[in-house]
């Protein structure tokens, strides 16, 4: 659906179902240089099972207009605006990578709207390699290439996608290329600049689920352990033989773990 947020046309996938303000709401937030298509295997799955799904393209991404936001804090406030515009009072927020940082910050800044939190392929910080940021600024296609390569596990490298006929790597590249030039660099700089992860994680009192990939080379599994420790009561699920793009690499396993979270939040 298209909604106006701060007078900017914004695309929000509702998983192919009409948004239902009375149904428990799941807010899915994508990562750096991505779009709502990160949630290819989640949005329709949960929308068709009674949840009200909001999977937006962040400003300047995918089908949304506007300029990309330059800080995780701004993105968190923007998500809060989206929740209000969509007519919900409380959501279970699920974030992938950069989207996880946004979810953490949303919970820190606006705890009253967060019923629970799902954090996928995340650590308390994402210290982006400066060379990658430079690459994103100067030779964006090379940065896409590097990120989709590093972002997938064995199945990605060998184009073995759960959806018959699909290619992880080429789909990933096309999604990133669908964003306006410069969006990836803005996102990466926002990630690198965000230093409130530990604090935000410590503030989480809502039910929390952390889903990590054993073979993640973007936010390594060991660093994700630190996030699990920072949220004392969090459940941790490790998925084997998968990389950073867990939601598309292992959709079934991710959905199973998220359902466990939704049972806790009553969503």
């Amino acid at each position, binding site marked *: 659906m298209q909604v106006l947020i701060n007078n900017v046309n914004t695309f929000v996938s509702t998983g192919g179902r009409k948004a239902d303000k009375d149904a428990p709401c799941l807010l899915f937030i994508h990562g750096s240089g991505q779009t709502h298509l990160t949630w290819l295997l989640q949005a329709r*799955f949960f929308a068709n099972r009674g949840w009200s799904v909001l999977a937006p393209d962040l400003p300047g991404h*995918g089908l949304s207009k506007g300029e990309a936001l330059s800080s995780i804090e701004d993105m968190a406030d923007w998500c809060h605006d989206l929740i209000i515009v969509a007519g919900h009072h409380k959501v279970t927020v699920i974030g992938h990578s950069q989207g996880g940082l946004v979810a953490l910050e949303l919970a820190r800044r606006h705890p009253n709207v967060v019923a629970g939190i799902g954090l996928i392929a995340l650590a308390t910080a994402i210290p982006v390699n400066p060379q990658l940021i430079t690459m994103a600024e100067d030779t964006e296609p090379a940065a896409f*290439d590097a990120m989709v390569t590093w972002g997938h596990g064995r*199945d990605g490298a060998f184009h073995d996608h759960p959806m018959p006929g699909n290619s992880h790597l080429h789909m990933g590249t096309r999604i990133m290329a669908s964003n306006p030039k410069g969006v990836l660099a803005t996102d990466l700089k926002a990630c690198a600049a965000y230093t409130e992860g530990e604090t935000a994680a410590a503030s989480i009192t809502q039910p929390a689920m952390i889903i990590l990939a054993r073979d993640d080379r973007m936010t390594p599994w060991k660093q994700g352990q630190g996030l699990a420790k920072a949220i004392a009561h969090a459940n941790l699920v490790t998925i084997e033989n998968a990389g950073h793009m867990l939601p598309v690499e292992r959709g079934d396993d991710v959905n199973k773990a998220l359902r466990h979270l939704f049972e806790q939040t009553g969503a």
Partner: protein
Amino acid sequence: MSKSFGFDTLGLHAGFTPDDRHGSRAVPIHQTTSYMFHDTEHAAALYNLEVGGHLYTRISNPTIGVLENRMAALDEGVAAVAVATGMSAVFLSVLALCSQGDHIVASSQMYGGNINLLEHTMSRFGVTTSFVDPTDHDAIAAAIQPNTKMVFGEVIGNPGLDVMDISAVAEIAHAAGVPLVIDATLNTPYLMKPLKHGANIVIHSLTKWIGGHGVAMGGIIVDGGNFDWGQNDRFPTLTQPHFAFQEVNLWEEFGPAAFSMRVRSEGMYNIGPTLSPMNAFHILQGLETLGMRMERHMANTNALLEFLKNHDGVAWVNHPSLADHPCHDIAMRQMPKGAGSIITMGIKGGRKASQAFIEKVELASHLANVGDARTLVIHPGSTTHSHISADAMKAAGLTDDLIRISVGLEDINDIKADFDRAIKIAQKIDQQKHATKGA
């Protein structure tokens, strides 16, 4: 793992992970019509395309899926859908975009089956086609109408061997808000990847070089994921609610893979030209050695060209790699590894001599196919293109004496010897004919 696996590595490995239980290294043949659901929710999820997996072989199948993933990897597309034949791949591509009242701009120099489908079959359902010279860019631009849904052509025209400048034609199509759909059968992804040059959809007959052994029919549609279907209102099949799947908007929900999802969710559901798993397996065996075979195809083609150019009995020989070919420069720029292993030629003495040559070859096979491991010859004017009109035949670059050669993998000296012998016999028959006339 690197994204940049080489062509031969992807040809051997892409799309397949040996399973933990059996560990089969070769891709297993899943000769089954249907698949056990875990529970009713799993069944519903598969029907709604919410999760990965298979529900019925008409829609998808694990063996066919490996072939699809492998071809998507080799052509650098976001997704692929394999079908029973190359012709059904063309038909499903048209079906995915066109409805009654729509229009196509197509190359006039294409395989006769493609021309017939558009000119005679689709026109019965209200989809019209303007055929234009693929090298006349002004004509292509002028032919695009507000209801045009695609520009369609072949990289290497069959059998005229003209070469479409993919980058230039893509630019023209995109400026008009229309995708470029390319039949790339004659080049294969080894010689050229049209998506990298700006094409949006690539179609192959898998029956030809990709299978390569002449044992299995198949076709495939590779979705480049590089066209903005939402830029205008021309493509309601992708940007309006789908008639099935809870009225999902494919462009919004599947993004770059919207086209291939339409092909699978309409073409395979409602039409169902399914590739058999056994044929997918056979084609995969060919695909595993495509790179090496294409190298040999091109080496033999180049050597045979040299031989035919210098043969006294040959009236003319045509191939894009020849310096005097009108598309030589484009061909070399787009396909530096070679411009395909089809050669056309005429024997001195015209149609009768050419027909005599075809009947006198012994090693080469006279049949209706291209891209086989074996060398093939045919007279298209009386076979593959005999059902198209005289005008269309002329537009396709077909002359009365044209022989189409699909150069195989035999020892080149044996091919040359076979051709030399048949050309000489054809010449003798021609000379005898003239002598008889003179008497």
